[in-house]
């Protein structure tokens, strides 16, 4: 235990003096601010201004819009609408006639936003013209979780998983390269402390850094209204797995410069599940074997508090992956990094 503790302290102090802890605390606070204050809770609504040319006989739209509380401004002509819209880039123009509506868009509104505006005014048109819209609209949701996360909350699993995986991968690699550059590894090699302590100490320092990030980020975004036991279990196993992968790959390179291509490819691969997360229709099976995929979806499930089936399954999968990668990392490090030291 003493040799492990000593090696752990070396790695911990090196990580601390390399500012790794300060970096993750700063990122956690920055992400918290982004989630709380920058990312809106939803993008499926329209909150911009309307510039309206009401060509109806009784100006009935003008009265109705004001009573519904929309930000509408009356324009005197189509040219006036266009002129106002050129100054207000989030605005939409509408020419309202007795026989229909003509919408003027900036050109970069999403189809979703265009449809929302269309539905608002279709409903208004039907109401004002005494036409009956569809009486009953019933919807059935097949997804297990009944509660859909607001957009800013939906970013939490993504930011959590990508930080643990990407930063964890880079940090553990940086620790190895620094040790190689300074030569501390040669002194370690002629000490009785073996490969196991070497791997475990680095992995646990990395887990601590990830846990610190996770706790700060979750506290400032979700507060105490979430299951920290599940989250910390996910962070522990996820960061441990990524540390093993980082050590396994970094040992074959002598510097961060040489390793950067590997790191870029690795991080790009780890970011792919984000696409599927925001657009579930993109359901590519291979994405599911990328560790970040299960971390993102399990985090989503924990925040939703709907069930814990996927989370438990993810924890079990991560544990199995660690069991598979640990011997590979151990024997590889023993052979490449520890035994084959070239001075």
């Amino acid at each position: 235990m003493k040799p492990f503790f000593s090696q752990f302290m070396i790695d911990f102090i090196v990580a601390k003096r390399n500012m790794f802890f300060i970096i993750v605390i700063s990122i956690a606070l920055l992400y918290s601010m982004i989630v709380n204050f920058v990312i809106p809770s939803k993008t499926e609504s329209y909150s911009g201004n309307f510039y309206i040319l009401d060509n109806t006989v009784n100006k009935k739209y003008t009265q109705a819009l004001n009573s519904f509380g929309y930000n509408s401004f009356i324009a005197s002509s189509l040219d006036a609408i266009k002129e106002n819209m050129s100054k207000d880039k989030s605005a939409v123009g509408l020419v309202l006639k007795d026989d229909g509506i003509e919408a003027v868009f900036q050109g970069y509104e999403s189809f979703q936003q265009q449809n929302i505006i269309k539905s608002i005014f279709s409903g208004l048109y039907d109401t004002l013209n005494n036409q009956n819209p569809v009486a009953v609209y019933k919807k059935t949701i097949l997804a297990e979780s009944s509660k859909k996360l607001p957009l800013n909350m939906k970013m939490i699993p993504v930011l959590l998983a990508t930080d643990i995986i990407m930063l964890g991968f880079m940090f553990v690699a940086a620790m190895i390269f620094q040790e190689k550059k300074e030569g501390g590894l040669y002194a370690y090699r002629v000490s009785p402390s073996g490969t196991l302590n070497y791997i475990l100490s680095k992995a646990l320092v990395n887990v601590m850094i990830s846990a610190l990030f996770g706790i700060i980020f979750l506290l400032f975004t979700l507060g105490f209204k979430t299951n920290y036991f599940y989250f910390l279990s996910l962070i522990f196993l996820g960061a441990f797995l990524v540390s093993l992968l980082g050590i396994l790959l970094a040992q074959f390179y002598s510097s961060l410069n040489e390793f950067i291509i590997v790191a870029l490819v690795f991080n790009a691969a780890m970011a792919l599940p984000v696409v599927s997360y925001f657009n579930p229709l993109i359901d590519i099976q291979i994405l599911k074997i990328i560790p970040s995929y299960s971390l993102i979806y399990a985090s989503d499930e924990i925040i939703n508090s709907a069930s814990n089936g996927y989370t438990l399954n993810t924890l079990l999968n991560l544990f199995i992956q660690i069991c598979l990668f640990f011997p590979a990392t151990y024997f590889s490090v023993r052979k490449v990094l520890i035994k084959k030291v070239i001075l």
Partner: protein
Amino acid sequence: MISVQNLSHKYHGNSDYSVRRISFDIGKGEIFGFLGPSGAGKSTVQKILTGLLKKQEGSIWIEGTEIDSLNKDFFEKIGVSFELPNLYEKLTGYENLKYYAGLFSRKTFDPLQVLSWVGLENDAHKKTSDYSKGMKQRLVFARAVINDPELLFLDEPLSGLDPATALSVKRVITDFKERGKTIFLTTHNMFLADEICDSIAFLNEGQILAMDTPKKLKLKYGSYSVNVEYRKDKKILTELFFLGKDEDKKRLKEVIDGYEIITMHSREATLEEIFIKLAGRGLN
């Protein structure tokens, strides 16, 4: 303590052997000096003996155990000082020793005590990245002795040290010897070897040229010489004459008869002179 027989080693990609069929024995409590110029193969032998390089040919027995069968108990009992400083630069000198000592299960020295042996007690809490090269070298030496090793491997321990610090380090080495520790010293510093080694092996181009105690080497290969300082055409010249050589005797007579002698000293041959005689080249 250590027995090496017909050890050979070739680096990957090199056609020539770095070390060729060398054999030697080191007794317990002995300081064994491995002497030779850069590239002679000294560090290669030390790396093989400490397990940093895998043995390719020959046999090595340490305390009756073949080197391939050595386990972590072996590393508990050895201390290794490297020629180039290899420290955790973000850690202080004290932290480097404290946590390195923690890697051993056996009793270790107090880091501050060891730092005082090498004159670093006042810089104990400075980051080693702020140390000078000489300070780093002393810290590497301190780290090698922190676990009170039975077998100490030292690679150029006095390299880059000022005379006062070199004296302190030399004193630590001789103290270890007096306490019955075995020391494998790799160096090209013949004065150090002459002063502290019980036996010496001259190594050149991967081969041992001669091996014995310094005294016996001098008796066997050395001869008394005369160092003469004389004036020739208003210039002062110095020349060394080996009295065992007829041509040198003849030349000495010519100098005495032909020029103004300023100083003339007889002296015993140095290990360096013996090495030059055997290898046909100097140590530096």
